[in-house]
């Protein structure tokens, strides 16, 4: 079992949910985040003064999957989150980390059955 964490452009969240849904993956957690990577920030202007915004707004999604689903899940995320033909700086990253155990609170089920 793996936890797939993806940082994506906020505007790609809806298509990402659609693509994951097509693969039968329904459980996910979404968080508003800010961060910095290779994408430069941008300037904003308020009452005549420009200032640099170095942390850009992103969306973080977390999905727990069985090992057999890792590739389809990563493909779906990549498909949904890449912008334009070639993709652009700022489209985000996917991290795949192992899961020690999963417990469903309602029933107490553990492991893959709990995902």
């Amino acid at each position: 079992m793996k936890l797939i964490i993806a940082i994506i452009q906020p505007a790609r969240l809806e298509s990402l949910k659609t693509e994951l849904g097509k693969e039968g993956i329904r459980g996910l957690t979404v968080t508003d985040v800010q961060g910095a990577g290779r994408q430069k920030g941008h300037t904003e202007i308020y009452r005549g003064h420009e200032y640099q915004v170095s942390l850009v707004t992103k969306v973080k999604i977390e999905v727990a999957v069985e090992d057999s689903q890792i590739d389809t899940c990563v493909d779906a995320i990549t498909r949904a989150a890449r912008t334009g033909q070639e993709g652009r700086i700022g489209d985000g990253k996917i991290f795949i980390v192992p899961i020690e155990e999963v417990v469903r609170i309602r029933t107490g089920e553990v492991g893959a059955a709990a995902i």
Partner: protein
Amino acid sequence: MRRRFLPNPLIVLLAVTACGVAGAQETAPMTALDDSNILWTCLAAFLVFFMQAGFAFVEGGFTRAKNLSNILMKNLMDFSIGSLVFWAIGFGLMFGIGTGIFGMNSFFFDPSAQTADGTTLAAAAGQSVNFGWAFLIFQTVFAATAATIVSGAMAERTKFIGYLFYSVLITAIVYPIFGHWAWGSLFNGDQSQGFLERMGFADFAGSTVVHSIGAWCALAGAIVIGPRLGKYGKDGKPRAIPGHNMAMGALGVFILWLGWFGFNPGSTTAVGGGDLAKIAVNTNLAAAAGAVAAMAMSWMLFKKPDISMSLNGALAGLVAITAGCDAMTAGWSAVTGLIAGAVVVGSVLMFEKVRVDDPVGAISVHGVCGAWGTIAIGFFATESGLLFGYGPGQLVTQLIGVGIAFAWAFPMSLGIFYLIKVTVGLRVSPEEEVAGLDISEHGLPAYHGFILESGRGVATEPVPEAVLVPASSTAPDPAV
């Protein structure tokens, strides 16, 4: 606020008779016009009252979320304290009959109160008792408008208790005494005329009397208290401290714009002749022109049309036309507003440059544009302006009035704020300022419920079982 003085002959007659027949004045028959004047003056007062909500929202939206509770409290309290103090002291100083410099009767104003010669205060002034009440509520909301201007200019760093003391002093002394000089005769006629009105100083609804006076107090306050932490970088250059909610700021400006339809057209305090309609048009055109001009200025200077500056521009137009809305054509009203909208942007940048930190632009909007609108009468007024061939007389009188307003309110409030500084204290500590005044001054942030409440000591009681059972325990929607 120059009520075209048409004392109702019935009431005057009655007042005269009443001097002989004490007590008979209560039976004054009211005419339909009297009733309409009272109704209109009260409706206008209610609109002006609503401007308090506008000020609260503009100031709240243009400042940071951590200081919102504090801004709201200041707006609530300057109106509440101002209402009490103006009724008790301010009204009498402003409209009472007295020394020539300020009024000496009508404290704790009650128009039905008996005077020494057996008539009522209202009848002695040639007014009906009920018009007296209407006049009081209208003047009260005006006084509170002057008071609340300061709150924005000193936002995000002022000690709450210090602000309360200031609220008392502006509505008790600073505003009413200047008001007496310019508007003293509005209730009692010539017997309480101020020296500025005797000179022919024209300020119909208070560009100077209300707005500039409030703003010169604000300027003094902003100077004495100093800029917010972080407003100026190490290089001394001003930095942006973005306001936290432009929706709030914009709603506040729309509310103020609406309230101004009471402020200016209501200053007729009479419906006779229907002047209020044209005044409403002039008011609206000036506001619109001010917003457009400020947008254009900000677009040229900053390469983007700046929302908060454009909102300031609408207010600048409104403040500027307040003095001359009864005396100008529609076209010249628009020009007055247009110039105000352009001036306000430059003025905001200028005050920033000289390290006067005014988070909402109140000094520029109300002070500079109030002065401009008052002076504009000298150029654009149809029946006295330079452009209409009347010579410089009116212009000089206007300049004198504007100068005296500054010379009265600015040093006076410098003294008041300095006094507050050395007694109860004017500014919060740097730690409190960083934490935000909501927590340090009031113990409660304005925005709750965005972080886990239990970790903040809220709702730690066990939640009832029933609440935890979800409304539907079916599987999530497979559509996602």
